[in-house]
């Protein structure tokens, strides 16, 4: 396989085309209306057409002009940080702020190249104490602090 000449533009362009097609498919049952009285589908589909055009342009450009190589993706770090966020989202109600916050800190610290666990433990306890005092206690936001059984 030959190396792509301009992978950033090519992939970006293809993704834009895909987004445009996806929008067309998802707005298929919305009424378009006419310019004088636009329906809910008019503006999104107008945008989809323009996005598609930009995508085609990018793909075309990528065929003729060289571009920088793609940067490597750090899938591991990405998965850890995004996973930590999602886990927090689902655990904060049942487990409460302190436990779900601790999980978030531990999971995300796994993504750091130079983690030191003792340091993180001390810092994490302080941080959780601070946010607990700030959000549910001082600002009165409706957050559970401890797990509900």
């Amino acid at each position: 396989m030959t190396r792509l000449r301009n992978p950033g533009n090519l992939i970006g362009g293809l993704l834009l085309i895909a987004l445009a097609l996806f929008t067309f498919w998802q707005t298929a049952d919305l009424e378009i209306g006419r310019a004088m009285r636009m329906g809910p589908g008019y503006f999104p589909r107008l945008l989809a057409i323009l996005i598609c055009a930009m995508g085609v342009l990018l793909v075309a450009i990528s065929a003729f002009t060289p571009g920088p190589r793609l940067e490597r993706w750090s899938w591991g770090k990405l998965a850890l940080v995004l996973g930590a966020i999602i886990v927090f989202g689902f655990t904060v109600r049942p487990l409460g702020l302190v436990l779900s916050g601790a999980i978030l800190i531990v999971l995300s610290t796994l993504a750091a190249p130079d983690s030191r666990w003792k340091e993180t433990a001390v810092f994490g306890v302080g941080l959780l104490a601070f946010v607990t005092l700030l959000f549910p206690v001082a600002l009165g936001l409706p957050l559970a602090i401890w797990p509900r059984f």
Partner: protein
Amino acid sequence: MDILANLWLGLSVAASPINIALCLLGVLVGTLIGVLPGIGPIATIAMLLPITFNLEPVGALIMLAGIYYGAQYGGSTTAILVNMPGEATSVVTTLDGHQMARQGRAGAALAIAALGSFFAGCVATVVIAVLGPILSKVAQSFGPAEYFSLMVVGLIAATVLASGSVIKAIAMILVGLLLGTVGSDIETGAQRLTFDIGELADGINFTTLAIGLFGIAEIIRNLERPEERGVLDRKITGLMPTWADIRQSFPAVLRGTTLGSILGILPGNGAVLAPYASYTLEKKIADDPRRFGKGAIEGVAGPESANNAGAQTSFIPLLTLGIPPNAVMALMVGAMTIHGIIPGPKVMESNPTLFWGMIASMWIGNLLLVVINLPLIGLWVRLLKVPYRLLFPAILVFCCIGVYTLNNSAVDVVLVAVFGFVGYGLLKLGFEPAPMLLAFVLGPLMEENLRRAFLISRGDPMVFVQRPISLGLLLVALALLAVVVLPAVRKKREEAFQED
């Protein structure tokens, strides 16, 4: 004098103890995030939006504005001491500011940056007070066609000023507009692109989008790069600049302030260009341009003043036309709508205390920054030594709590992760996310005005070119597009962004 009376009204609002306290809190938080690399004003303001629910609207906006210009100050501190721009706008300051620090003149560089910014802030406040009423009068004659064309200008200008490919920037704007259409249609109530997720019926939450695109994506990006922060260990002495320093930098401050004030008013984030423009100008007119890059004090004074002036005058399009010129101002729109204020030309009449209070608070905030920050520099330096491995989990905790408490729903938190993924992908593929956020905010406004304009003209698209103001604006947009495509300018633009 009307202006004096108005400013007096504003001062009486802004000088209430609670508002001074909020302003102080804002500039302190702003400086903090400005000093710390890897977290910018966009993500911070987005995170703090939910907290402002409980405040008075004036106080909330005073605090958020304080974060914005506080971050500009803090960014320059990092630029000078660590040779790392805390904010994108302080990139230029690293060139000469850090050289000064190496020559043992960090104190003078920091002081000139702070005093120049203070001067620029004062001038910009007056500019807003003078121009604000005039522009909002003009804006009141705007119909839907004019508003639509004005937003087109703003968005095109945003693509011109975005770094990298213009096509990619335009694509980002279009995607932002598309994201803005998610939710119930305003006229028919039909669900658009909501995928039957109840939380999306009101549209994508602005906070969620901003935190994901800017906060989370930046964190993952920073984790990839090994950390290098050569914090200056030498003690900073001689904070006061000498008379020679002041004499040398004052003209640069004046020029920088003028440039920044003008560029800041332009739609489409002209303020970003201000420090670059000022640095180039100073270098051009200097007797000995070779001094630049080796610790020329004008190279700090000019861009820093331009930066702060631009940051403040960029409030003008927001406060008078209701159209945010950049992503931070777009957040301010969010903050205003939360409190039931629709930004636009009528704000000044219907909410004079808010309008003038906010303007007066900028002056107070600038004063606070000089008084507080110069003595606090030692503290900021120590904060810079907090390693990133501790910093980013803390940022994540704040982001997650902030987003969750928007609606107490896990869906919002998951969406942050989704947008974080999108933001990371955009960075990797060379797309800049800032124009997308701006377009996301303008999207619903644009669609509404487009619909109204067509309704009035009975579907005739000529309405946009038959009305003189609208035609003029569209011509400006065309000219801007032409300018980018011209090869000579394109090269200049690439050079300007090369220095990143």
